[in-house]
């Protein structure tokens, strides 16, 4: 295992890192002081040079996104930090919010200066109570010290920052649904165009970035875009926080250079699959990507291009590992319960389709599958994907389609058993009793 660069998790081991004094004792709030001396456009140039890509899942180049913001429209520019981390299998942002909240604030301040934005908001998912307390305390501290508010660091630049707690909707992580929610409306994605960079919050130019993305900005300003771009591989620069969960000896959040070998990550960093069992498959990017079987994982690296080539996606690196003890039918039922519960209900294919597929998976799981069910699910996935307002429908169908394609024998066996009348034994992980169905 080669030494991994630490950009984001450099200081999280220190018990007082979440306090202002702890953060400053380790060089905090120096880079914002430097930034405020810089030309805002120069910062955007550096971020472009760094080739930093959005860490929320879509991987859109951050510098380019910032470049879309029209200047001198006479309207305020808003910066939103998307901390609605709701993708199943993802829990990296909470580490930053809980353990290094001032890094997040500093990253936002640097970005706000680059965008000439005087108001920013951290949209924290409703269930994140502790991260909310930590980031709110950090903001309070920063205000008390004069690091937020009027004339910060004596630069003449004003900046206000607020925290907004979501009410518990996955869809509010979609940037336009987040804006609707912030405006006090029901969290449902908007039609695009217009894109938020042009008409976002209250119709004003708005930049929405993930927590991890913004937390990278101070390092880029300190060391330069080139230095950041030299870490990782082509098209995937810098480091990535990976939320590793599932059948691993050492699950957790790890920071690795982009392009790190997937199997090495499992074996060397996460300690491998426990109890001598064998790897069955990995969902590498958070639940809304294609699953990779153990065979497909060979030679794949944790970066955008390599995973795309392997037929999946890096997403936000919600890395979920399944060993051969996994009941894939129950696993996909679990996911379909989630998507059915979280579909916002705005557009027809996703609203109706998510539930329909959930009901079919549930039927298969409880031993009432019918011949043709798998083909039906596959067909329904095609009817949903590409026909919805937002990406929810497009990505929801990815795990469904890949599961029934790659683990087809398990599904078929379950359906065959139900036709034969073999009673289905179900594990302790039973959703019928969980009230989801």
């Amino acid at each position: 295992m080669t030494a991994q660069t630490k950009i984001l998790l450099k200081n999280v081991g220190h018990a007082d890192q979440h306090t202002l004094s702890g953060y400053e004792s380790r060089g905090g709030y120096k880079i914002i002081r430097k930034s405020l001396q810089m030309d805002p456009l120069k910062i955007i140039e550096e971020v472009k040079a760094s080739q930093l890509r959005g860490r929320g899942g879509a991987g859109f180049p951050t510098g380019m996104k910032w470049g879309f913001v029209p200047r001198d429209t006479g309207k305020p520019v808003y910066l939103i930090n998307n901390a609605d981390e709701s993708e199943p299998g993802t829990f990296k942002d909470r580490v930053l919010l809980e353990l290094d909240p001032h890094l997040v604030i500093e990253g936002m301040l640097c970005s706000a200066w680059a965008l000439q934005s005087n108001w920013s908001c951290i949209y924290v998912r409703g269930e994140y109570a502790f991260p909310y307390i930590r980031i709110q305390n950090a903001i309070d501290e920063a205000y008390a010290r004069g690091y937020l508010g009027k004339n910060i660091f004596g630069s003449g630049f004003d900046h206000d920052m607020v925290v907004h707690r979501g009410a518990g909707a996955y869809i509010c992580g979609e940037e336009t649904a987040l804006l609707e929610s912030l405006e006090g409306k029901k969290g449902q994605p908007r039609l695009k165009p217009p894109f938020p960079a042009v008409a976002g919050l209250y119709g004003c130019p708005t930049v929405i970035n993930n927590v991890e993305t913004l937390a990278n900005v101070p390092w880029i300003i300190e060391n330069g875009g080139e230095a950041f771009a030299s870490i990782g591989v082509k098209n995937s620069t810098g480091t990535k926080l990976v939320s590793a969960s599932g059948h691993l000896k050492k699950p957790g959040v790890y920071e690795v250079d982009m392009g790190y070998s997937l199997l090495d990550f499992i074996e060397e960093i996460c300690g491998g699959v426990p109890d001598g069992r064998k790897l069955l498959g990995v969902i590498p990017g958070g639940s809304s990507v294609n699953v990779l079987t153990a065979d497909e994982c060979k030679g794949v690296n944790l970066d955008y291009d390599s995973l795309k080539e392997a037929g999946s996606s890096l997403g936000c690196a919600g890395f979920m590992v399944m060993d051969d003890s996994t009941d894939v039918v129950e696993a996909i039922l679990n996911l379909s319960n989630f998507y059915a519960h979280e579909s916002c209900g705005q557009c027809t294919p996703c609203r109706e389709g998510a539930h329909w597929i959930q009901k079919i998976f549930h039927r298969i799981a409880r031993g009432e599958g019918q011949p043709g069910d798998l083909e039906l699910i596959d067909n329904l996935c095609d009817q949903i994907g590409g026909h919805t307002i937002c990406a929810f429908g497009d990505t929801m169908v990815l795990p469904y389609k890949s599961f029934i394609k790659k683990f087809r024998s398990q599904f078929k066996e379950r359906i065959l058993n139900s036709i034969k009348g073999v009673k289905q034994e179900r594990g302790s992980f039973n959703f019928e009793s969980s009230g989801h169905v």
Partner: protein
Amino acid sequence: MSEVAQEQVTVTLTIDGKEVTVPKGTVIIEAAKQAGIEIPFYCYHPHLSIPGNCRMCQVEVEGAPKLMIGCHTQVAEGMIVKTHNTSTQVENAQASTLEMLLINHPLDCTVCDQAGHCKLQDYHYEYNARSSRFLEKKEKKVKAEVLGPTVILDGERCIACTRCVRFCDEITETGELGLLNRGDRYVIAVNEGHELNNPLSGTVVDLCPVGALTHRKWRFNTRMWYTQATETICPGCSTGCNAKVHVRDDQVVQVKARLNSEVNKEWMCDEGRYGFDRFLPKERCLYPTKAGLELEWDAAFKELSNLKNGKSLILAAPDLLLEEFYLLKLLCDRYLPDASRALAYRERSLTPVEAILISPDYAANFQGAIFSGYIDGGESLEQQLEGHVKAIKQKKFDNILFVGDRSLTDKDQADTALLAAINEMPRRFGILSDRESPLASLSQLVFPARSILEKSGLLINRAGRLQFSAQSIDFPIGSEPEWRILNRFATALGSKFTEAENDRELTRWYLKQDPRVQGLSIAAIKNQLGIDLEQYQPQEAVA
């Protein structure tokens, strides 16, 4: 406008191989409509915001990575669009959308009021028409939920197009409705502490493309295919809302607004909708009567010619047809030149929500009275009426003729001094349809007329738009339209004005007579959803 500027404002695109040129900024649905191609939709409405949620209007746009929605995608120069007519991908997407919409739908068409004019039914037959693959249990939702005094909801039939919600948010700005819950548990509901009670509330039923919202007044009344539907104009005020009236057994069983972007968009007020038949007479006059006793028509006209003796006042209702005002004007000009002419026109005050649609009067055709030359529009109509009321009270008139049931406004009917003064006039005549009305008791001689709903003809709305109001209710034998009574009176006095035998012939006659409307026909007026008279250039009638 220069050629360059011309190029900028229009865009030429191809839809299903058909070239069409439309203004820049037009959405594909509207462009297709112009090309004569129907793209199906549920949630889209030209006068509401665009949510793009039903996914029924998906089309293929060359170069786009996936299907686009026709309601939101704006046209671009050289764009090539394929609809369900030419693209299997679109065809499949629409069939799939319909399949999805119907999985949780109760399919209770047999007891649904919307059956027969339901877009779910229509589109299913047109774009899907295959049996469902859904084997699971349907979602259960609220049934027969009362939303307010006028509207009732069946939650299971709702397809979440949010037209009703958007109407209350964007048009009336009363915001009573909301879409609650996520996913397929969604349900339309009234916001806490509110009820759906605004002056335009019934419009949400028209906007509902399915049977989720229905009128409490007309629920479970009749199947739509047993009704006779007429496209007509609401006579309630001078806005001239375009309406479609369904009648069964002489009873109005449903009133829907018709889309007319220049007049009422697709809205209608509750007063006009639920009270559409409020002007129908309760007790009919079916023959001329004098002091309650039947009289021969000739004898009656002979009596009426007493209008020539002494000072006479002609008081006309504001909901007469334009042709009738025109005849009344000719009659007065030729045979009663000394008679004073008045129009029952009074303004009323409106709340802001009412003012969105309703005009501040009860006078459907006061513009017609002015246009025909019957009265002078120079002075305020209310002041003119006030002057005549004063003159009546000062006993300046010997004779009075009421033309139409509403020739005395409600306010004047409450004026006892006025009524007493009228009662003291030596000769009082009425051309009325209701023999129980206060006007009938004021009149010594009554001619049996018809209500506005029982005749066809032209109306001019407040904005000066000429519209055709079609007869929506059958008239009883014995009654005569006001115009024919006036024409027969003219015959009795000398010679008749028109040879017209029925309403249509009269309208055709009028359109030839008046040089300002030359070149118009009933069909042209109907097809163009009315004619803006200020813009209209009269043409020589085509032989």
